[in-house]
């Protein structure tokens, strides 16, 4: 079985798996990383988004081979229970979800945005989250939460 190496949430990771398998399959399966959620399986909904380098990508249609030697960040790498990421605190403060199934992917899209653009406008947040679906209708709260997190990060 071929082996693929990459960095997962800052830790060197080596996995023996078919390199054509999806990153999501390997994360949730062999690696037991459950932050990214399986939604559509077709790169349409964003529930499985992870950060690859500086950008959010859907892990369900990212083949394992394509992340070789790259940095992959999942929700587990965003913050900890003791020190949550400002986005995680802001999503709690704004109560920015109903069912919450999509939130992991939305947090990753938002984190990638704030990495590239620390003080986005409301419009820029909406554009960055455009490819993340939330059928509960929590989008307005989510946009407010991302703006709140950006303000908090800027104030530090």
């Amino acid at each position, binding site marked *: 079985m071929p082996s693929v190496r990459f960095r997962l949430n800052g830790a060197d990771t080596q996995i023996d798996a078919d390199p054509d*398998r999806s990153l999501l*399959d390997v994360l*949730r*399966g062999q690696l*037991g990383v*459950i*932050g990214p*959620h*399986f939604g559509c399986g077709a790169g349409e909904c964003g529930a499985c988004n992870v950060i690859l380098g500086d950008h959010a990508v859907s892990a369900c249609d990212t083949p394992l081979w394509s992340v070789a030697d790259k940095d992959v960040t*999942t*929700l*587990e790498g*965003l*913050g900890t*229970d003791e020190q*949550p990421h400002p*986005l*995680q605190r802001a*999503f*709690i403060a704004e*109560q920015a*979800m*109903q*069912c*919450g*199934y999509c*939130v*992991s992917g939305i*947090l990753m899209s938002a984190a990638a945005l704030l990495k590239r653009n620390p003080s986005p406008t409301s419009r820029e947040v909406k554009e960055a989250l455009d490819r993340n679906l939330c059928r*509960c209708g929590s989008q307005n709260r989510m946009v407010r939460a991302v703006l709140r997190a950006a303000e908090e990060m800027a104030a530090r």
Partner: protein
Amino acid sequence: MSQQASTSSPALPVSLAANPKLSAWLKFTSTGQVTVSPGKVEIGQGIVTALAQIAADELDIDLSRVQMIRASTATSPNEGVTSGSLSIQQSGRAMRHACAEVRRIFLQQAAERLGVDADALDIEDGTISGPGNVRTSYWELADEVSLDRDATPGVTPKSASRRALAGHSVQRIDIPDKVLGRPRFIHDQALAGMLHGRVLRPDNAGARLTGLKEDGARAMAGLVAIVRDGNFAGVVSETEHGAEAALNALRKGASWSDGEPLPDENDLAAFLKAQPVESTVINHKSTASSAAAARTIRVAKGTVISTWLTIMEK
């Protein structure tokens, strides 16, 4: 699980009538917590928080003392299905009544122990106190009060105006887990010996499985079984990935009859309207009804019909 027909004597809420034992709904721990067990499932609609608010309010305890137990078939009160926006109506009413009764039972026990009248006692965050600075608490009394008894009708919960938590916005108790990546969804649970399945489906409705070559699927790593029952076929594997791979192989070995085409997706409304329906009258108000009823039911004149459209699988 039908409501008692009698209107002269007060009836228990339906879920409580079906599961009358108070200890099935809540238990006190000696460490200052209350475990609350609804028979409805949190599926993202926020009911665990709402039910916790109802319980904490009725018991006069802080919300942080309430531990919500996830509904389980084996141990929770049987409240049937979680659907139809009925969780607060059914589980909430049962919880409110059960907690109000438990509160009264503890007050009676406290009154005996402290030698004061139960009506003279107050409860604040679980601490029961009364005149002369006498005090005890749910947690102190927990060992001497058995909740293995049936709920009784006639308990009066707090009036809406006296509720400090229910009806007011609080932070949802399930949200921190969801933003911190802790397991909250059934998809995130891995059980010991868990197997994964996938079902083979035809492209057309009503297609019959006329042939199935299993060799390709059998060669897949982790395969446990290929299941076939008439037109139904599926695979069971040790891993989700293995199940996907086996299903793909099985699909290549499957032959189907033509079946029937799906409805025109550009005119689904017409298709839906052409299907058989089952209608239930849930309220009919005639102009001849009494003035009192007219005041109570402020529904516009006419008939409210709940229509269920059933599309049978062929």
